[in-house]
């Protein structure tokens, strides 16, 4: 018992836990705002979902079922108690609980997010290292131009361009969907298609799932990745001019070792927060990419809910996105803590 107590105490003193709790609190505030907006704004949700011709008594029954006839604070109270039971209320489109719907669709989005985070890392770091090594060289200029292109093409623009070039013109990759029709038999274990296909031992299906993953992943992360490469480059150039590098060179430490061991690590500190923010906000861009690539994920579900004015589903999706945002930010805080010794000092001073 005492052990648990001390553990809890130390956990609450932990910066990450405190920050995550604070974010959860603001998420609660957000839920109040968005819930109220969803109820207060004009327009009858029942009529929006079923069309204006629905008989009045049926509409009334739906209103009772969804607690829409009660005062606002009671509605929020009922909804909040449901949330603590991990239920987000009934959807007006699918007639199921929103949390069940989201649980069905979320793994596809998660797969996309993980893939795009991995893609970001394997693109941003090598490009940054390449261009930081010889500033002003051809490679550096190419990456600079790429970075500008990356910034100014929005995510949905990338999705359209990639579909056009690689799916329609070259025919190398499938444009939409998650897996081809012939592999629909894959049983769902984790919900992540690439892992499920591996579990079932169906290698062609795995390759197929991977090929479907490429266009949405690249569309989601290419713009941010080149920008992060630029930040890494700037940071490398700044660090390589520092005195400690000169000192190492004068001691005859091999250039390669200096570069990859002693320069790259402090330089990556500048990139990690940006990358974290970008990965977190790709949850938002997934809304567009999933819509364009017909990716059956949570964001596409949210999109459909928004177009149909499905109140509970909209609130639910926004909150789950907020939760994902918090989780990613916390992970990034931890990563920064591991990489950057100064972050540890700062934390000690704070507490």
């Amino acid at each position, binding site marked *: 018992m005492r052990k648990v107590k001390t553990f809890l105490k130390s956990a609450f003193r932990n910066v990450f836990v405190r920050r995550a709790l604070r974010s959860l609190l603001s998420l609660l505030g957000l839920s109040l705002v968005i819930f109220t907006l969803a109820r207060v704004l004009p327009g009858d949700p029942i009529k929006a979902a079923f069309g204006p011709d629905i008989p009045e008594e049926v509409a009334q029954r739906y209103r009772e079922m969804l607690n829409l006839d009660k005062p606002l604070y009671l509605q929020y109270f009922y909804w909040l108690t449901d949330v603590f039971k991990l239920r987000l209320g009934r959807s007006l489109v699918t007639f199921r609980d929103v949390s069940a719907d989201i649980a069905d669709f979320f793994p596809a989005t998660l797969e996309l997010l993980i893939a795009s985070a991995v893609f970001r890392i394997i693109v941003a770091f090598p490009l940054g290292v390449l261009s930081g090594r010889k500033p002003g060289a051809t490679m550096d200029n190419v990456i600079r131009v790429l970075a500008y292109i990356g910034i100014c093409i929005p995510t949905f*623009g990338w999705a359209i361009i990639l579909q056009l070039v690689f799916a329609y013109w070259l025919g190398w990759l499938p444009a939409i969907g998650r897996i081809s029709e012939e592999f629909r038999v894959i049983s769902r274990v984790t919900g992540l298609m690439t892992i499920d296909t591996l579990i079932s031992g169906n290698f062609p299906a795995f390759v197929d799932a991977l090929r479907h993953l490429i266009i949405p992943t690249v569309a989601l992360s290419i713009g941010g990745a080149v920008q992060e490469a630029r930040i890494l480059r700037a940071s490398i150039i700044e660090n390589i001019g520092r005195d400690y590098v000169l000192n190492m060179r004068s001691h005859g430490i091999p250039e390669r070792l200096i570069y990859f061991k002693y320069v790259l690590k402090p330089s990556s500190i500048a990139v990690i927060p940006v990358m974290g923010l970008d990965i977190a906000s790709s949850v938002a861009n997934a809304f567009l990419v999933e819509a364009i690539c017909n990716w059956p994920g949570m964001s596409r579900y949210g999109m459909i809910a928004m177009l149909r004015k499905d109140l509970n589903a909209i609130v639910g999706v926004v909150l789950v996105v907020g939760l994902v945002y918090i989780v990613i930010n916390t992970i990034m805080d931890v990563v920064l803590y591991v990489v950057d010794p100064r972050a540890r000092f700062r934390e000690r001073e704070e507490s």
Partner: protein
Amino acid sequence: MRSMDYVTLARMERRVRIESLRRAWFRFSRNKPAVVGFFVLAAIVITALLAEYVTPYPSHAGLYINFKEKFQPPSFKHLFGTDMYGRDVFTRVIFGFRYALMMVGVVLGIVVPAGTILGLVAGYYKGTIIDHLIGGLSEIFVAVPPLVLALAICSLLEPNVINALLAITLMWWPWYTRMVYSMTSSLRNEPYVWEAKALGMRTYQILFKELLPNMLGPILTKATLDASWVIIIGASISFVGLGAQPPTPDLGTMLAEYCRYLPSYWWMTLGPLLGIIVLVLSFNLVGDGLRDVFAGE
């Protein structure tokens, strides 16, 4: 005698201000991409304002049908080709600039002053109830990616341009508040603020005459860079169908409309896409130039 001193002082102050502006422009003009961006942007603004007079087919902007000329590939007659109703895509893109620029103007025009004032007040009264109130409120809006919140708010309202503007404005101010807040809270203990207080200056004078001028550079830079984000988010909202509705020549709406004809009539999509890219690129170039100017100070 005394009053004359003040007059000379004011004159000198003005001269210094003009001089520093001139220097800033000089530094900006050394940055070639930024200058190019600036002129492209100026050209876009002018053509967008005069869209009725400079475009080849002004009537094609809204509802117009001429099936004889539908799906024309790009040519000298129609630079970006024509769409499924036979409308000139180039003309519509120019009119689309108008909506994009209006969006930038309205959103930033509201958000930058409002966010700045809230940040100043919260930062100046750091640790008091005002600070916690504003801080907590801004944290709520930052808890979710801006685009998601904007989409959600738009979906709850009627889908049109005004509501899209409203949604973007509503979720954007906290970013300025947070930036100004952190700058204010680091500047509020500077000696000159104490001196101003000791001289008996009013709080609003300290906020706007002593503190604000030190932050104008970063705020202006952020506003320019944010302009491109406003364009992208605005286009995203109308792209998914929650913003401007079809006959409106909004870049995002056009993209969504033309997207459906993708593999066969691809050039239609390229027009609005190119429009967004050029606009965003020029805002980014100018923003980078401004950042370099203020970083040099």
